[in-house]
């Protein structure tokens, strides 16, 4: 029979043995292996969520396409999901904007053509929503593929730094992916999104004018009288999901005005802008420059036309997070829109005089905001 002293001696011997074994294992990298195992498990579980999101987006997009009698929706979606644009050569910057603009235009035309071919009986709004939902599916699929790629690469090359970085980034990646997932619902439902703040301000400044005309691809313009000034308002054509070509439209308008001997006194751009963490959503701020978040071709047009004709280029922004920008417009952003309308009027009144011409561009995706 084992008495208390023997049991104690055994426990002590065992614990010392365990301690020594643990110490040796530590020098052999056991701690890292355990840590990598926990990180990998964590990434894998989140990857399952990402795959689920991509799959759900795919299913919803296919449903939407089928509901709107699209021809071979599966092959159309596969084509869009794997579509890519190769950036122009940047080590030779000469005419890079022209080349980039050309590539962007080709991409827009290709997408439009594909959807027109597949959905000939649908209207523009339905087609634009199908296009956006396919793009969201593409984004979610890409996120999931990239995460999987780095996880497998990290495991294959036993690169624990890569796995650690990926694990640390996973909450942020998941947050972005979830924003896209929720954005898909909001786009398909036709809600104005946070990024629609700019076009909504332009629409409110027009006092819901009914004489909007298309001046450029998916971009409309109207003019209204405001305290003796002529306001020329530009926005994307809604309520379809599009950003239009506001830079090209404004360039065209200013060229036409100056050819008639009229020089605008002010060029005001209004857009949604990303806030910093800790800042309030829906807060407005003003500054100088072109408030437009495109990759270059449209923004440079504002700058060029303003510099060429020496027109003051002013910017008014409505602050929001990335999630808020692509999801249904919330009350704070809507209140920010009201504040931006008041602030835009204030800027126009203080910086121009009666009889002046002012060009105002409401920048952003006009989903759910008509004219």
């Amino acid at each position, binding site marked *: 029979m084992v008495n208390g002293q023997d049991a104690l001696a055994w426990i002590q011997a065992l614990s010392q043995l365990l301690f020594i074994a643990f110490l040796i294992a530590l020098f052999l990298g056991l701690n890292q292996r355990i840590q990598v195992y926990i990180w990998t498990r964590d990434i894998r579980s*989140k990857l399952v969520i990402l795959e689920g999101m991509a799959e759900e987006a795919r299913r919803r997009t296919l449903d939407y396409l089928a509901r709107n009698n699209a021809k071979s929706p599966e092959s159309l979606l596969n084509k869009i999901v794997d579509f890519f644009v190769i950036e122009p050569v940047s080590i030779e910057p000469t005419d890079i904007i022209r080349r980039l603009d050309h590539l962007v235009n080709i991409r827009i035309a290709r997408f439009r053509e594909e959807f027109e071919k597949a959905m000939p009986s649908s209207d523009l709004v339905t087609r634009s929503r199908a296009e956006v939902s396919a793009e969201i599916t593409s984004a979610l699929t890409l996120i999931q593929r990239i995460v999987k790629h780095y996880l497998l690469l990290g495991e294959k090359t036993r690169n624990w730094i890569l796995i650690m970085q990926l694990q640390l980034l996973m909450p942020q990646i*998941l947050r972005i992916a979830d924003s896209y997932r929720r954005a898909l619902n909001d786009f398909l439902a036709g809600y*104005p999104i946070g990024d629609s703040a700019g076009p909504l301000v332009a629409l409110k400044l027009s006092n819901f004018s009914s004489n909007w005309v298309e001046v450029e691809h998916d971009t409309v313009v109207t003019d209204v009288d405001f305290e003796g000034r002529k306001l020329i308002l530009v926005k994307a054509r809604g309520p379809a999901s599009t950003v239009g070509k506001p830079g090209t439209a404004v360039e065209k308008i200013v060229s036409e005005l100056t050819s008639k001997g009229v020089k605008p006194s002010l060029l005001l751009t209004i857009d949604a802008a990303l806030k910093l963490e800790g800042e309030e959503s829906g807060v407005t701020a003003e500054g100088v420059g072109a408030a437009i978040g495109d990759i270059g071709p449209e923004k440079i047009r504002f700058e060029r036309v303003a510099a060429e004709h020496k027109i003051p280029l002013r910017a008014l922004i409505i602050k929001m997070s990335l999630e808020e920008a692509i999801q249904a417009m*919330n009350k704070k952003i809507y209140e920010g829109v009201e504040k931006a309308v008041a602030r835009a009027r204030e800027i126009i009144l203080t910086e121009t005089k009666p009889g002046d011409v002012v060009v105002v561009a409401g920048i952003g995706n006009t989903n759910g905001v008509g004219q």
Partner: protein
Amino acid sequence: MVTQTTNPLEWLQPLLLIVIMGILLLLLLRQTMMLSRAGEAYSKVQRVVTLVACGDKVEARPFKEGDYVGRVLGDCGEGRQARIVGIYSEEVALEKPR
């Protein structure tokens, strides 16, 4: 005669081992629970409101399919037209299942 004396500190080492193993087990459980909860944070419910204006009067109603800002809804009396002037979402708190 040999007398056996027991040192109370002799039990400290196995006790410490048990405590450490207990803590490790708890940490492992916490990690597992965190993983299973990863997808739960992403379920908020939102209500979308449409603002309809008739002259100076603005009324809020639930969003209907086909609504968009700027849409004219028709005559609302005295020759005025009802128009959608705003659409925004509000978050609704979820009731916990009993």
